[in-house]
């Protein structure tokens, strides 16, 4: 590792220099994650086995288990990466919007756009998210909580701008907007709706759900 400068430990703080071993481990993890993403997309969560994932990554199941506790751990890791990226994409989309209706529409859109090329993965995410066994760990994690929080932030910002009236129902309205956003996935997943069709539907949903909060 000649290209990595040695880091001096400042005071008592111990800064870990990535060793060849850690780097190799990171590389292995990345390879497994890539193979797992591919297989979850093709076979769904139930259909993809650790053995298939290991084979696709070109390693032993032992090597996979050395890096991930089990299949659900592996799936969560993929979901967290995506959710964090999606939250960022939604915030970025919101910053381009003008007025709360347009802002929310751009946020919905950013979500559908994010998943349009990986709908099977979105489908697996719903399935795992609702499942009794693996659902709680997926839903309670920070990246999963950040996503709906975006909607509440946007409503509060619109109230601060004087676009929407002050009200007690911000959390419920935000939740319902998030639910409306999610509720369109079955159409996208099973009925192959286009982004344009999803957009038209989202626009109506946003209009109805904001109606009571508008000033005047």
């Amino acid at each position, binding site marked *: 590792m000649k290209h990595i400068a040695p880091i001096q430990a400042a005071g008592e703080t111990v800064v870990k220099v990535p060793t060849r071993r850690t780097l190799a481990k990171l590389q292995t993890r990345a390879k497994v994650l890539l193979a797992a993403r591919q297989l979850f997309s093709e076979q769904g969560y139930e259909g993809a086995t650790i053995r298939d994932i290991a084979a696709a990554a070109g390693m032993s199941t032992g090597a996979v288990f050395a890096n991930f506790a089990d299949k659900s751990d592996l799936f969560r890791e993929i979901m967290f990466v995506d959710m964090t990226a999606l939250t960022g994409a939604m915030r970025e989309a919101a910053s381009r919007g003008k007025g709360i209706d347009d802002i929310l529409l751009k946020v919905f859109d950013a979500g559908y756009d994010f998943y349009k090329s990986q709908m099977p993965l979105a489908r697996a995410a719903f*399935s795992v998210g*609702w499942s*009794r066994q693996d659902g709680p760990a997926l839903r309670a994690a920070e990246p999963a909580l950040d996503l709906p929080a975006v909607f509440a932030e946007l409503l509060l910002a619109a109230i601060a701008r004087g676009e929407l009236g002050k009200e007690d129902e911000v959390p419920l309205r935000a939740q*319902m907007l998030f639910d409306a956003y999610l*509720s369109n996935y079955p159409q996208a997943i099973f009925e192959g709706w286009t982004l344009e069709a999803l957009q038209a*539907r989202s626009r109506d949903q946003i209009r109805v759900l*904001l109606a009571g909060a508008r000033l005047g």
Partner: protein
Amino acid sequence: MPSRGEPIGPGLSAPPAAAPQPGPAENRPRQTQKEATRNRVIEAARELFDSKGYQGASVREIARLAGVSVGSVFTTFASKGEILAEVMQARLEALYAELDRVLPHLRGSTADRLRSMFAIHFAFEAPRTRLFLAHIVAAYDWTMPAGARPFGKTPRLQDIIRECLDKGVAEGDVDPACDQQEIIDLLMSAYAWTYRLAAWEGADVATLTSVMDRQIGLIAQGFAKR
């Protein structure tokens, strides 16, 4: 019995065994036996999906509990997904009978009538929350054939909401220009997602109903006549 959705399995719209339809005599015993197998499988599946979830219950276990062979389960149903779809369908018959009885007597604003209607739903599903969740999970199940997909097969519920909104238009508290299908979809998604409170937080019927009441309030602001 009103026909709804596409019939998924053989005999879906067949009359109950107590009142056999006159038919070709040589077919009758076989038909009745098939019907009995079907009912036993649905009964056993309801119990197992409720206790073990959709993934947790195998067709073999369902067959064992029903006291029939795995083979005869598969001559009656194409897949586990189809069994679930029929379990859900069978349970809806009772709910719709209750709604048909109550609906003509509902009074008040459109929002209030919708609230009463959904409250009946929650009260009805409460003892079967786990079954309902098995249904939702299965809706996204990878292995389920498209034909057996249970999600959103509730045309009767949609009709009931539409009647409610039409009455509101006639009585003047629903904007005639609003897109009714949009409102129906929003109400149905609010309804379905409210179950997550039961699933994830163990919320009781009173909590589910009050959360739904507030959601209906917000949606009603969107269809109110201005």
